[in-house]
């Protein structure tokens, strides 16, 4: 039981962010032609520190589903339903219109109201009133984006989710600072969860989004930690001789699949977090690593070098019958299931080109979504529409996102250091 020690950690999620703190900006590098025209009018507000309209506008634009009307092109700026002239918006070629108001309602709280209209039918589609503290105004804006997105696309919005990722900054002389950070899905308000001068790797959200498993080399050997985000308290759950890597939560949150090399070659194990019982799932002499659970919890897909080159294999999550899944490409690794279990994203390598591919689990065909040459660490958005991944160009690492049909691409630019290993938080 000595590997199951509870320890202190100084990392506290609510840690204040200095103004020089690195932030992400997002560029849409490839959009969809059929994007729907939407106008979001600046919200009526007095002395509100957060521009809700700009956040909602940027969220919807970034999704690739919508073509947003610029503020300058607007000929009127209604903030109440009575002020809306639908003809103005029809003339501007807009299909949908969003208006809103933010008013203080005492105690530092704000009342945020908005309406979404169908411009051609001249009717309201949805309207909400929400109370928000100053600190939560950004979150409230993302919630508005989620509500609009869901109404117009029928898919759950992911704007109020968060992304975790690893950064590394060179200190010179072959030393780095590694940080595990969590930011809003738009890259704003990044918060540092853990910092070390030794590598941090493989962040994995618990299914309830409250905990993060990750690998840390802070003791000059790999160990796996589970950290509670709200408190910063953490538990060291695996600290065996050799590799302790690639943690992956079971869908019910009770177990971690992980890679251990304590018996010689790296194999997949499942660790029960309550009983600490360890079950060996694979037992090959080759490398077995990077486990990921199917969303129904029945299967584990993993990378294995048993065929000479890394390929993906699938096994029942209690171990047993192991079957090879990938046969095209000379390198298929680091699989990640879509939330509905129908797709499997992976690093798909051919020659020197490593791209993100997605396998249709029914037909077992792989569709390559990105252009490489060093794309890695695919992570599905909780609504299954986008895949976040890490790329590298000119020696710096950054994050990118691609829709699962490959048509929409975004680049998330970090203003300092290298950023990698993105993980999108699960649905709230």
């Amino acid at each position, binding site marked *: 039981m000595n590997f199951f020690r509870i320890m*202190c950690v100084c990392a506290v999620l609510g840690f204040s962010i200095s103004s020089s703190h690195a932030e992400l900006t997002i560029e849409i590098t490839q959009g969809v032609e059929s994007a729907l025209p939407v106008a979001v009018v600046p919200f009526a507000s007095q002395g509100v520190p957060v521009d809700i309209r700009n956040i909602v506008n940027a969220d919807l634009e970034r999704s690739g589903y919508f073509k947003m009307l610029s503020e300058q092109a607007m000929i009127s700026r209604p903030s109440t339903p009575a002020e809306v002239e639908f003809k103005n918006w029809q003339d501007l070629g807009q299909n949908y219109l969003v208006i809103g108001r933010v008013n203080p309602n005492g105690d530092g709280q704000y009342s945020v109201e908005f309406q979404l209209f169908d411009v051609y039918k001249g009717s309201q589609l949805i309207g909400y009133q929400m109370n928000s503290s100053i600190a939560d105004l950004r979150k409230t804006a993302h919630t508005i984006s989620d509500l609009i997105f869901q109404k117009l696309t029928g898919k759950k919005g992911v704007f109020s989710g968060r992304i975790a990722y690893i950064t590394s900054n060179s200190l010179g002389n072959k030393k780095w600072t590694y940080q595990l950070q969590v930011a809003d899905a738009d890259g704003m308000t990044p918060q540092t969860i853990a910092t070390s001068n030794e590598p941090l790797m493989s962040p994995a959200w618990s299914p309830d989004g409250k905990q993060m498993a990750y690998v840390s080399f802070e003791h000059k050997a790999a160990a796996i930690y589970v950290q509670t985000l709200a408190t910063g308290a953490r538990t060291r759950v695996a600290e065996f001789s050799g590799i302790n890597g690639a943690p992956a939560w079971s869908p019910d949150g009770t177990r971690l699949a992980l890679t251990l090399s304590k018996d010689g070659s790296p194999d997949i194990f499942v660790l029960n977090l309550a009983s600490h019982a360890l079950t060996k799932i694979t037992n090959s002499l080759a490398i077995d690593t990077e486990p990921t659970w199917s969303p129904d919890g029945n299967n584990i897909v993993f990378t294995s070098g048993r065929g000479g080159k890394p390929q993906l294999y699938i096994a029942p999550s209690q171990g047993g019958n192991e079957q090879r899944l990938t046969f095209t490409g000379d390198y298929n690794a680091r699989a990640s299931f879509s939330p509905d279990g129908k797709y499997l994203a992976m690093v798909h390598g051919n020659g020197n080109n490593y791209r993100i591919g997605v396998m249709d689990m029914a037909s077992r065909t792989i569709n390559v979504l990105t252009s490489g040459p060093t794309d890695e660490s695919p992570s599905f958005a909780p609504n299954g529409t986008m895949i976040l991944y890490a790329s590298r160009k000119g020696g710096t690492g950054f994050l990118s996102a691609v829709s699962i049909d490959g048509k929409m691409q975004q680049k998330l630019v970090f203003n300092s250091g290298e950023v990698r290993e993105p993980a999108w938080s699960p649905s709230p």
Partner: protein
Amino acid sequence: MKVNKTLVALLVTACLLSACSDDKKPISATDGSQNATNGIKDASTSGLNASSGLNPQGLPNVNAGLGADGEFNDPNSPQPKIIYFMLDSSDVQPDFVPVIAAHAQYLVANPSLSLLIEGNTDERGSREYNIALGEQRARSVANLLLAQGVSNAQLRIVSYGEEKPAASGNDESTWEQNRRAELVYQGK
């Protein structure tokens, strides 16, 4: 577990009072026990490593970097201390067999010394697979040393995969420099 929870509460409090008292500093993930034995990675010293001045002069770059972490860079130990590998391979190339033999002789002659073998890979492919590949490289070197009489107790291996590149860039000459095992001598 009740005792542990109390311990956590106390430790968190201690952390908040000490290392985390200045919220402008990066917050370290290091824990109390580590700080007790090896204070160099405390949050307050990150990037300002006080022990870096202890590094012996005139050693190759690789050891200058590693030595800064307080490891023992034995100036008498054999050179070179880096073993390079081919793409996707953990086989020791013939060129490096005599290098490893020299280290084996030195370790056999100095049983109080121990050696940390750090396996590394280039940046291509997935990160956790590269951790496994780096470990295989370190293990290949360890196996050759063991075969030449080095005691198991003198050896420790760790793989950093692609997390600690020796060179940055995305061309073959960079990748060659990163596919390596580094030998780091440590006092007993």
